[in-house]
């Protein structure tokens, strides 16, 4: 079985896809002995419920079905409630003689819309969804923590691809926040990678990134150097490695690195990549101090990194990108869509910043990325706002 976007899947990809297809085709429960045999073959010893495509199923039926519900609730809020609230906000502002598209600050938008019952309820729905989803996941992983931690310990030593963990490193406070209300954030929970993967599948990535489809599209769209030479790729803020593994699939001969400050994040990324047989190296390092030599990489990427980085961090990371990229090398940076410039859009930005704990949203909106890139010798070739397109593509001159 081949992948539509990337035909060169690894051995474990084939194994997992075939297992999922077989399970689906027989319309029956997965034979327990087969599932256990599959787990033995797999890096994932806790995967006794089989695979769905490239990923193991959730460890229990309870977690899987709660996830179905939380995904459905997120989708409903996005497609139904937010639309109703957007229309309602327009009516509300017009009724008060205010142009809903008028340029205004976050503070002005909050003052106008705060307290409206429908808009308040959209915030409540988001916050309750985040809280309950992460709470359930954390409780379930903690209940069997020794088993899941043993699984990761086993995977730490497996390949392909290497894993570097630095438990003694200084972790800057700005990176140790409970970003988007995830308990412990990226550095503080032993199961941060597990929480992030399920949490985003049932949240921001609902129905768009199942099986890493969004990351594969982004990798497919990523710009390459004009000379076509792609020997080394670096993915900054790699999180659970979805973009890094997708880049490896596009460039199977390249050496690919994924860096993240979260130890539990890169552990999970490594376990996942090893399970799929994708050869990516993951390291727990700070993006602004990557430790690589000058002019080392042909492509540097980052996805959803900068909205989670403070202003100084963003400037330092751009400087580091310019240092490690070779002349002619390409930097592709994607991030979340800009919210519509309506009063409601600005209110939503404020909510994300203040109560979804996207603590660096304001910094992200303040940084002049194009200017910073050009100041550091990167020539910005493209600046677009598509969900899966590079937002900035820059070439090192």
């Amino acid at each position, binding site marked *: 079985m081949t992948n539509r976007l990337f035909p060169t899947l690894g051995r474990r990809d084939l194994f997992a896809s075939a297992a999922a297809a077989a399970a689906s085709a027989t319309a029956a*429960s997965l034979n327990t002995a087969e599932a256990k045999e599959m787990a033995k073959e797999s890096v994932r010893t806790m995967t006794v419920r089989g695979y769905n495509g490239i990923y193991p199923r959730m460890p229990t039926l309870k977690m899987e079905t709660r996830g179905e519900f939380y995904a459905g609730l997120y989708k409903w809020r996005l497609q139904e409630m937010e639309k109703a609230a957007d229309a309602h906000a327009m009516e509300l502002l017009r009724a008060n003689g205010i142009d809903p598209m008028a340029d205004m600050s976050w503070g002005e938008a909050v003052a106008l819309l705060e307290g409206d019952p429908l808009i308040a309820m959209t915030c409540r729905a988001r916050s309750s969804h985040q809280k309950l989803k992460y709470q359930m996941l954390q409780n379930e992983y903690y209940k069997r923590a020794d088993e899941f931690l043993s699984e990761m310990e086993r995977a730490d030593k497996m390949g392909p691809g290497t894993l570097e963990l630095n438990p003694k490193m200084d972790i800057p406070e700005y990176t140790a926040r409970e970003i988007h209300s995830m308990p412990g954030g990226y550095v503080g929970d032993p199961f941060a990678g597990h929480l992030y993967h399920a949490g985003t599948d049932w949240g921001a990535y609902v129905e768009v990134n199942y099986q890493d489809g969004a990351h594969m599209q982004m990798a497919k769209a990523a710009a390459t150097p004009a000379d076509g030479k792609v020997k080394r790729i670096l993915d900054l803020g790699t999180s659970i490695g979805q973009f890094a593994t997708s880049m490896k699939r596009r460039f199977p001969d390249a050496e690919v690195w994924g860096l993240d400050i979260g130890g539990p994040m890169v552990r999970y990324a490594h376990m996942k990549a090893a399970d799929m047989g994708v050869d990516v190296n993951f390291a727990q390092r700070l993006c602004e101090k990557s430790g690589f030599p000058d002019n080392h990489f042909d492509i540097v990427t980052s996805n959803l990194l900068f909205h989670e980085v403070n202003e100084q961090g963003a400037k330092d990371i751009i400087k580091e990108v310019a240092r490690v990229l070779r002349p002619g090398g390409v930097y592709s940076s994607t991030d979340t869509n800009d919210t519509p410039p309506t009063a409601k859009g600005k209110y939503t930005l404020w909510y994300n910043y203040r109560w979804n704990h996207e603590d660096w949203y304001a910094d992200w909106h303040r940084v002049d990325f194009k200017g910073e890139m050009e100041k550091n010798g990167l020539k910005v070739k493209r600046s677009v706002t598509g969900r899966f397109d590079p937002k900035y593509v820059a070439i090192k001159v």
Partner: protein
Amino acid sequence: MARAKSRLRTKHETYAAEFTVADYDRAYFTKDPIVDALFTSLTALTANVWSMQRRMHVVETLLEKNGSVTREMIEQYQPTEEEAKQISAARDDFVSEIYDPFQQMGDIAYGSSIDVPENMVSKNK
């Protein structure tokens, strides 16, 4: 800002570091914190109900097929692609049934201000 470590106690190396504690649990958005709490409780309850429905569906499917069922069979059951589509559609209906009333709150102002007859007195007949 308060700092904390993971509450998990284990003999394993976790590679988890100290973090800054966020205050999201202190947020309330409606005019009454009890309403916020009720919405969260409703959502927790609804998640439980959906999980129970799904488990029951798995049990019924297995009983129909095999005449008996074990906990392990329930855990291992993997829906077909067709079943997965049906589950997804049923889930969407379930969510809509419970949550749609919350998006109709934009009518509150309308509903509370119209069509009250003036000087109306009810008379016993």
